[in-house]
């Protein structure tokens, strides 16, 4: 710190004009500052302590004094610090010049991001979707249905009587589980994605011709799959995914919005990994829902295990793979595509077979 008496050499920059003068600044006992021209000792400016502020302290740059009218005094010595400078003004520059701060934050940041993405955002998303009005789900459902019909699905080839049979069967189950029949409507569609079923946020459930054909002799398997899909709807999984994805994207946009170079690549990869982790958790949640409901109507989760086996087989898994000791070489690719967002299917089959009503 400079003593109050010695003048500080620098430049006096006039307010709003290019004119500047070599000058020196003298700090008086009461904190006021007087600027004096270097060449002829002419007084150039005088300011009370309360009519001036300090510029930001940036490493390697002089600390400027900014007067009320916008004029500035810039010391020649970049390391000079005004005695009146507060600690808060000095703090950023202190952090920026110490590797300790850098290292501490390097450790803190990944932990913080993990906590946000893994804990805070999912629970916030879960909590907030409960408050979403129903029409959001209905609107999302009908939009998705439109989109699917336009680009991915064809009218079904399943006969009317078979459709009626499956629907009647399904309604009987809904009644027994006291679920609203008009909410969980079944739709039959032909699609190149093979045997599959999926639920939309509004409760519509789409069955592909592939899965109807695959399970035509095993209605109990089809029902197990349908209950799994209802599990997604009841847990509002698609809304949660949407909320989470939006919140995560927003968070990353906010956190890393100003960072160039540091690689959206890494972030992108991390985010999609996390997304598939979310979707695996959701599959397990929907599975558990299916087990409980199957149990309620006097069926066994083994129905679900059998349905999964049938689906795996229809998507190209070999008998060996079904046993869990396959080399994974043949048809691996197609299987991989189907399974990418799902937990290990064999694990799910095992979980279904080992499920006990008292464990939940």
């Amino acid at each position, binding site marked *: 710190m400079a003593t109050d008496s010695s003048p500080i050499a620098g430049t006096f920059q006039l307010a709003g004009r290019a004119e*500047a003068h070599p000058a020196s600044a003298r700090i008086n006992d009461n904190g006021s500052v007087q600027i004096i021209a270097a060449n002829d000792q002419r007084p150039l400016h005088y300011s009370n302590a309360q009519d001036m502020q300090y510029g930001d302290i940036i490493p390697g740059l002089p600390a400027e004094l900014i007067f009320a009218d916008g004029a500035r005094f810039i010391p020649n010595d970049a390391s000079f610090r005004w005695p009146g400078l507060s600690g808060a003004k000095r703090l950023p520059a202190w952090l920026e010049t110490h590797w300790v701060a850098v290292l501490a934050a390097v450790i803190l940041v990944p932990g913080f991001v993990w906590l946000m993405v893994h804990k805070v955002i999912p629970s916030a998303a879960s909590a907030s979707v409960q408050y979403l009005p129903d029409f959001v789900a209905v609107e999302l459902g009908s939009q998705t249905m439109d989109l699917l019909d336009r680009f991915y699905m064809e009218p079904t080839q399943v006969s009317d009587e078979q459709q009626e049979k499956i629907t009647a069967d399904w309604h009987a189950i809904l009644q027994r589980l006291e679920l609203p029949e008009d909410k969980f409507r079944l739709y039959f569609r032909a699609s190149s994605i093979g045997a599959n079923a999926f639920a939309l946020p509004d409760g519509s459930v789409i069955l592909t011709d592939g899965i109807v054909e695959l399970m035509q002799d095993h209605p109990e398997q089809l029902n197990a799959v349908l209950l799994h899909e209802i599990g997604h709807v009841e847990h509002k999984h698609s809304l949660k995914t949407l909320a989470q994805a939006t919140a995560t994207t927003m968070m990353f946009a*906010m956190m890393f919005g100003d*960072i160039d170079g540091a690689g959206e690549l890494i972030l992108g990869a991390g985010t999609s990994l996390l997304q598939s982790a979310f979707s695996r958790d959701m599959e397990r949640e929907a599975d558990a829902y299916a087990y409980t409901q199957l149990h309620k109507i006097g069926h066994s989760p083994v129905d679900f295990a059998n349905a999964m086996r049938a689906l795996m087989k229809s998507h190209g898994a070999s008998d060996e793979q079904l046993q869990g000791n396959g080399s994974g070489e043949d048809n691996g690719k197609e299987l991989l595509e189907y399974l990418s967002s799902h937990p290990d299917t064999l694990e799910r089959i095992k979980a279904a077979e080992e499920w006990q009503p008292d464990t939940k």
Partner: protein
Amino acid sequence: MNPSVSPDVSNAGETRTLPVVFSGKKGEYLKLWLVNMLLSILTLGIYSAWAKVRNTQYLYGHTQVEGHRLQYLATPLQILRGRIIAVILFGLYVLLSSMHPVANLVLMLLLLAAMPWLLIQGLRFSLRMTAYRNVRFSFNANYGGVLLHFILLPILGALTFGLAMPWVIQRLQKYVHESISFGGHNFSLNSSAGYYYKAVFACIGLAILYFIALAILGSGVFAALAAENPAAIGGMIIIMISYFMFGYVIAAVYQSMIRNHVMNNLSIDGVVSFNSSVVAMPYVWLMLSNALLLIFTLGLAYPVTQIRKNKFLADATLVNLQPAADHLVNTVSDQDSAFGEEAAGLFDADLSLT
């Protein structure tokens, strides 16, 4: 550390030719950048407004001409406010456009229509927040002009299969630079489209030479490959590396030629003009080594590459200040919002001048 030049106005009356001095240090800026990035992350991006101000203040403050430093005058709160509005709009945009295909289309059209405006706001804000000797820069483009130069002319350029593109870029850069003013005086840029064609032809010439060399080397490698000679692998690697480097060579040759041409023809009558003497080969090396630095540090060396580039370009630049430069008066008020700049950045409409 760096000798501070004591400014002297007594030699007013004649034109002074002055170097641009850049005194930023790699390690110093790396630390500053890292700490600011980490603080931004830990505050969920709120600190990023302060980070932006501090990063820019560092780079500007270490750039000086005749002992006077460039000033960055935006305040963090200005930037934070703009950023919050932009983030909210962006969130609404994502949400609405994912909900309804029609909404998506309408929003996209709206965004397209707003694009010129966003570009203007962004450039206007950053220029108005830039000052030299307490005199601010300003940007006075209008919607129609930006629409013409940034959207319509490039479409025209594409329709001519790129033949008109050098001319389009010359028009665009002329328009942008001549929209900038300093102390109430407009810049003028007497660039010639012919020179842009010259730069493009130089690059095409280089490309032809490269592909001839590639054909000769390539046929040798293929012959070796056919003969199952293990040396062929090395040849393949050399070809791949040369291909990676070639992109930087072309870019550096083009950019250095255009930068020199633009700077040498940019002036404010009676106030200031510039000399730029970027030499292509060292610039190639700078760009290439910066790219390698970024790749091998996963982007963390970004601040180091910025310091290197700023230093390189400053060293290649001279400023000719005429006497009137010492008597300029600021004409720009500081009432300005950062929203345009932030929104432009979020919607990927940021643009750089050279």
